[in-house]
C-alpha cells in the first residue's frame, strides 16, 4: 500500500529531515512510528499525504509515485488518506458538526447522509453530545477526537495519525488506540506516529523507529512487545 524507496527530504535552508528511508506498509497493516521529536516522524507522514514532496527517492502509494503526481491529482490522493494532525487543524470558528462533515461536504454527500455519518463518527470518539459546540469550547483532548472523527468519516483506505494521543489522559489514549485497532481490523491501513512507548508496547504491533532521519529499527508486532519488555526498567 505504502512503500518508501531511498526517500530523503531536505527542507530549504538545509535541514535534512529524512535521509534514505526504506520500508513498506502492506494493505490492511497497522504500524507505529516512533522516535524522538525531530526524528522525522511528521515529515514521513506528510510525504504520504503529499503535503511535502521528497527531495530524493520514491514514495509509492498504491503503486503510484506520489512525489510525481500532478497538483491536479493531489486532492484525489488526499481523500484516500485520513490524516490526524498533532495541532488538530480544525476550523475554529465552526461547530464540531461542520468540522467532521468537511470530507463528506467535499465529496458531495447528501446532507441527511452527512448528518447520519457525523453522528456515528462522533459516537465512536465519544463526542455525540458536542455536535453543535464550537471548537474553542472543547478541551485539547476533545479537539483531538474531533480531528480523529474527521479523518475517518469518509472511510479512507489509509489513516495517518501524528501524535493522536498527545493531549489525552492514559485511559482515553488506550481507548482511542483500541479504536484505531478496530478500524484496522475492518481493513483500514493505519500508521501512527507516537512517542507513547508504553502504549505501543502494550498493543504489540509492528513498530518503525526513526532516529535523525534514518529508519533504525523495524520490529514486527510480537517481537516488539517482547524485546521492549526485556529491556524495560
Amino acid at each position, binding site marked *: 500500500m505504502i512503500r518508501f524507496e531511498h526517500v530523503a527530504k531536505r527542507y530549504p535552508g538545509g535541514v535534512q529531515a529524512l535521509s534514505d528511508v526504506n520500508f513498506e506498509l502492506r494493505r490492511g497493516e497497522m504500524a507505529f512510528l516512533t522516535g524522538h521529536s525531530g526524528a522525522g516522524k511528521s515529515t514521513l507522514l506528510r510525504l504520504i499525504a503529499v503535503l511535502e514532496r521528497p527531495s530524493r527517492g520514491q514514495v509509492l502509494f498504491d503503486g503510484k509515485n506520489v512525489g510525481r503526481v500532478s497538483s491536479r491529482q493531489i*486532492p484525489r490522493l488526499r481523500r484516500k488518506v485520513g490524516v490526524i494532525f498533532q495541532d488538530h487543524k480544525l476550523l475554529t470558528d465552526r461547530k464540531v458538526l461542520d468540522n467532521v462533515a468537511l470530507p463528506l*461536504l*467535499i*465529496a*458531495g454527500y447528501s446532507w441527511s*447522509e452527512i448528518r447520519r455519518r457525523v453522528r456515528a463518527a462522533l459516537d465512536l470518539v465519544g463526542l455525540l453530545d458536542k455536535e453543535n459546540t464550537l471548537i474553542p469550547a472543547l478541551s485539547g483532548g476533545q479537539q483531538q477526537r474531533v480531528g480523529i472523527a*474527521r479523518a475517518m468519516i469518509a472511510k479512507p483506505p489509509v489513516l495517518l495519525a501524528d501524535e493522536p494521543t498527545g493531549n489525552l489522559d492514559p485511559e482515553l489514549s488506550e481507548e482511542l488506540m483500541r479504536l484505531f485497532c478496530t478500524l484496522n481490523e475492518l481493513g483500514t491501513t493505519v500508521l501512527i506516529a507516537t512517542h507513547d512507548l508504553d502504549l505501543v508496547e502494550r498493543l504489540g504491533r509492528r513498530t518503525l523507529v526513526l532516529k535523525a532521519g534514518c529508519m533504525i529499527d523495524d520490529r514486527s508486532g510480537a517481537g516488539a512487545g517482547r524485546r521492549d519488555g526485556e529491556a524495560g526498567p
Partner: protein
Amino acid sequence: MSRMSERGGGDLRAWARRHGYSLLSSVGTLVRNPLTSALTIIVLAIALTLPLGLNTALVNLEAVHDNLDRLDSISVFLELDAGEDGARRVASQLSSWRNILAVDPVSPETGMRELAGATGLDRFEVGDVPLPWVLEVTPNSTVDIAELAERLRRAERVDMVVVDLDWVRRLDAILGVFSRLVILLAALFAASVLFVISNNIRTEIQRRREEIEILALVGATPGYIRRPFLYSGLWMGLGGALLAWLAVHAGLWMLKGPVEALAATYGASAELTAPSVQMLGLMLTGSGVLGILGAWVAVSRQLARINP
C-alpha cells in the same frame, strides 16, 4: 467500516450538492461578517451610482431636448410698412399651411417691451427704433425646419426669417460629449468594482488562510476551495448594483419637486424618467460578472501560493 461506499446519488447530484454547500458557505460568510459585507457593498454602490446617475440624467436631458425640438419656433419679421392689418392677413394665410401648427403675431409695442425687458434697458433708452410686426411660427413637429424657413422667406411681405438652430445644435453636441463621458465613467467604475471586489476577496482569503489550508489537507480540489469566494464576489457585485439602482431612484425622488418647479418656469411639465428594468438587468449582470472575475483573480493568485 467499508471502503468508499455509495455517494447516495450520481456524480451530477454530488456536483450539484457541492455547489449548494459552496453557495451556503458564501452566504454564511456574508452573514457572519455583516459590517464588512455591508461596507463593501456600499462602496460598490457608490462607485456604480455615479455612472448610473449620469446615464439617467442623460436620458432625461435627451427627453427635454426632444421636447424643445417640438417647441422650437421660427421668427418671421414682416416688412416695416406691413402694419397690423397686413400682419393679421399674413398670419391667417400662414396658419393654413399644412406644416404650421400655430402663428402668433407680435406687435412692435410688445416687441419693444420684450426687447427692453431682455436688455434691461429703459424703453426710452432704447429709443424710437422702428420695429416691424413679427410672426412667431410654431412648426409641425415632423417638419424640416430649414426647408420651412426657406418657404417662409419667399412668402408675401416677409422681410426676414430667423431660426435659432444654433443652440439646438449646441445642446446636441453637449449631449454627445455627455454620453461619451458616461461610457468612459462606466468603464472606469467597472474597473474600480473589479478592484474593490478583488481586494476584498484577497483580504478575505488571508483571513481564512487556515481554513483554505485545512480544506486542501482533507482533499478539496482548487475548484471547491475557489467556489465560495466566487459566490461571495457575485453577491457583492449584485448587492452593489441593486443598491446603486435604489440610490438613483431615491435621488430621482428627491429631485422630483425642484425639477417640476424649474419646468414650471418654462411653462412646461417635467416627468423624470427612472432607469429602465433592462438597465437594472444590465447592471446586475455586468456587476455580477465583474464580481466573479475579481474574486477569480484574487483566489487564483492566493491558491498558487498555498498549494505545495
